[in-house]
């Protein structure tokens, strides 16, 4: 009788809890890293940079015990995961207070999705100092993406200076790390090529606005790593000719965007930010901070292939190899020319505000930023090509239009959203399940990868409404406007910020608040669509 009861009890449990509990223990500690030669203090997870890849299956109950062995508070944010706000891991949001030194915090949440994601600290500069790693979630149903081999390729940028030092240096002098500014020699060269008048006029226009056409990256001096390995250590993924190899690219860099290519191989992009997309074959893709792309490659030859992620400022490569065995190296690449920003990278509205008499018709509308220097005929992934593999469940028309203006002051190294640096009292308020269009207006000369916690946005990239791709991080190119749709289905206070570490730390962050279903939030009356397509958008949709 007793055993029957017990058996009944267990079978009941089994039917109630189909989900498996997957437990991880993560210990955050300071380590002396010698990656750059000279030992410097960095932050590791379970002793390594990056930390261990966490693997789950959709439907699992994730239980992650995070122990803080640092002298300062820490936190871990699960980038791209749908979860309750308090488990999101951003201190100061949703009642999460961070993890005090010596304490263990247990994150517990159901895994509601599949794909490639990552985790990192959300406390000051700890992410840049090493607290990051990948997350791989297998789908509950058979994976639409079939592959013989499956590798995480996590890119990161490693600096000898601590994040706190870099931030202080940028605040003291925003050009602290910039040694590629235009010189008198460049002006003379321009004068020789274009004529003195034109060269002076161009230099004058930039000077008048107090902007630098060479402002591609704020921080230099990085060493680029693939899965924590230097180029000399050469991370290698093995294959047998003809196999389908899935590469899960994660850009965990603090400040670096890349152009990624594998000379000799076509890459088929099958997922973006963890979400499956209709396969699209490309030669290379531009890779924003905090984005992820899954690609399939099918190497057929008996050789090694170089995986090359070239930093946008052309200061270096993150290199790895696909090879038949360890120790092989592929093609050696040379750097492409460094892009120079052009008038087409400036926000037109700002230019008009500065100089209402400016003659736009004579202006150079091409973007310098978008020019990746890819050889003629090479296919470079365009956001417009991303198409959700499965239909969107919410295709309602938006009832509100909300501008999210990305601004800043390079001179003082202050970065803003809607004119303000981060403050807990500011933010964007949404009702539960409200459907809104967020219009990202970049008024600066830099690209900003804008990340929303807790929810995906649907990128309005010209695809049909039910096939817009989901993104958790969207690159907003210099001077451009990008719009996304959001269904506010996750109540909570969600951090909403530029994923360039020092832009976020310098203020480019706000809160997107989604009211609880029972809150009875009354959204402001629907506004007419702001006129944001009249200029700026569209010039650079295609590389």
């Amino acid at each position, binding site marked *: 009788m007793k055993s029957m009861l017990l058996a009944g009890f267990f079978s009941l449990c089994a039917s109630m809890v189909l989900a498996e509990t997957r437990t991880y223990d993560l210990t955050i500690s300071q380590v002396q890293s010698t990656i750059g030669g000279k030992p410097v203090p960095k932050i590791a997870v379970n002793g390594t940079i990056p930390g261990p890849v966490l693997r789950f299956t959709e439907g699992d109950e994730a239980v992650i015990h995070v122990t803080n062995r640092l002298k300062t508070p820490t936190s871990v944010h699960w980038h791209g995961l749908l979860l309750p706000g308090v488990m999101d891991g951003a*201190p*100061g949001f949703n009642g999460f207070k*961070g993890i005090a030194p010596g304490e263990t915090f247990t994150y517990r949440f159901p895994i509601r999705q599949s794909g490639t994601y990552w985790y990192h600290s959300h*406390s*000051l*500069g700890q992410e840049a100092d090493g607290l990051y790693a990948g997350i791989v979630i297998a789908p509950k149903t058979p994976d639409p993406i079939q592959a013989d081999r499956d590798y995480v390729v996590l890119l990161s940028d490693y600096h000898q200076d601590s994040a706190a030092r870099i*931030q*202080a*240096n940028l*605040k*003291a*002098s925003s050009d*602290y790390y*910039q*040694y*590629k*500014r*235009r*010189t*008198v*020699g460049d002006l003379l060269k321009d004068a020789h090529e274009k004529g003195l008048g034109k060269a002076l006029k161009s230099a*004058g226009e930039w*000077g*008048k*606005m*107090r902007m630098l056409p060479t402002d591609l990256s704020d921080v230099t001096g990085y060493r680029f790593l693939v899965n924590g390995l230097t180029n000399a250590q050469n991370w290698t993924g093995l294959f047998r000719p003809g196999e389908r190899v899935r590469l899960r690219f994660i850009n965990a860099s603090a400040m670096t965007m890349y152009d990624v290519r594998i000379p000799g191989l076509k890459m088929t992009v099958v997922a973006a930010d963890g979400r499956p997309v209709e396969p699209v074959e490309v030669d290379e893709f531009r890779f924003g901070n905090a984005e992820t792309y899954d690609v399939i490659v099918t190497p057929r030859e008996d050789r090694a292939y170089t995986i090359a992620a070239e930093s946008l400022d052309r200061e270096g490569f993150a290199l790895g190899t696909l090879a038949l065995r360890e120790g092989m190296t592929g093609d050696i690449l040379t750097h492409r020319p460094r892009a120079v920003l052009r008038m087409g990278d400036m926000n037109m509205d700002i230019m008009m505000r500065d100089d209402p008499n400016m003659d736009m018709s004579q202006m150079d509308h091409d973007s310098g930023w978008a020019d990746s220097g890819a050889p003629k005929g090479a296919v470079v992934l365009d956001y417009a090509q991303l198409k959700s593999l499965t239909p969107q469940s919410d295709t309602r028309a938006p009832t509100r239009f909300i501008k999210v203006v990305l601004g800043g*002051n390079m*001179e*003082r190294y*202050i970065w803003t959203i809607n004119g303000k*640096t*981060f*403050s807990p009292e500011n933010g964007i308020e949404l009702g539960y399940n409200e459907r809104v269009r967020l219009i990202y207006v970049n008024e600066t000369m830099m690209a900003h990868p804008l990340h929303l916690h807790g929810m995906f946005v649907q990128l309005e990239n010209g695809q049909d409404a039910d096939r817009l791709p989901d993104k958790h991080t969207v690159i907003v190119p210099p001077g451009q406007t990008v719009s996304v749709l959001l269904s506010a289905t996750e109540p909570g206070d969600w951090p909403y910020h530029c994923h360039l570490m020092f832009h*976020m*730390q*310098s*203020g480019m*962050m706000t809160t997107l608040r989604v009211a609880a279903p029972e809150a009875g939030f009354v959204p402001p009356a629907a506004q007419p669509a702001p006129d944001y397509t009249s200029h700026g958008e569209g010039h650079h949709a295609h590389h």
Partner: protein
Amino acid sequence: MHIIKKVVCFLLLPSAAVAQHDHSATYHAVWLETAYSRHDGQDTAHWDADGWVGGDTHKLWLKSEGEVRDGDSEGEVWALYSRNVSIFWDAQVGVRHDFGAGDRTWLAVGANGLAPYFFETEAHLLLGEDGTVGARLRQENDLLLTNRLILSPSLEINAVSQADPQHGTGSGLTDATAALQLRYEVNRRFAPYVQLDHQRKLGDTAKRARSAGKEDEENRVSIGVRWLF
């Protein structure tokens, strides 16, 4: 520096301590130029310090310049509250104290920022204890010969409303200094330089100098090091 930061943090930014993100943290930058020149057979040491501590909006701005010649020092020291008022500009209010040849304290009000074409600009109105009004305008620009070899021309003009016979200054424009600094930035924190200065007394002040049998202009070559702390 750390103590000053703490004090400023306490005075200006009471909320900084609880902030989760660094946007309201305090930072600092101090540029110090120390130089040596030989003039009329005399060794002269010069300094020019320009620095601030504070946050994005509020800063305590301190600066000082002067020289030591034959054991006597002469110069000025400023202490200003500096508030960011627009993208490129700070409004400033504080005091300037002159020491050496003539001790004197001024109330200073002005602006510090970046004018179009990258002209670093300092413009201040000064109010002396005796009601004298003074003014100073200073502009500086960087010409990059290379990314590390930088030619930096600057111009400074001074004016006062009332003559001061004791110090040999007349009313109106008193003097101007044009300087050309060529520095090599080994890094941002250490840059040796050579500098040419041409100082000229102007108007009534020049007249007074000449009638007192003094030169009304001075040229100087100095070598020095620019530090960033």
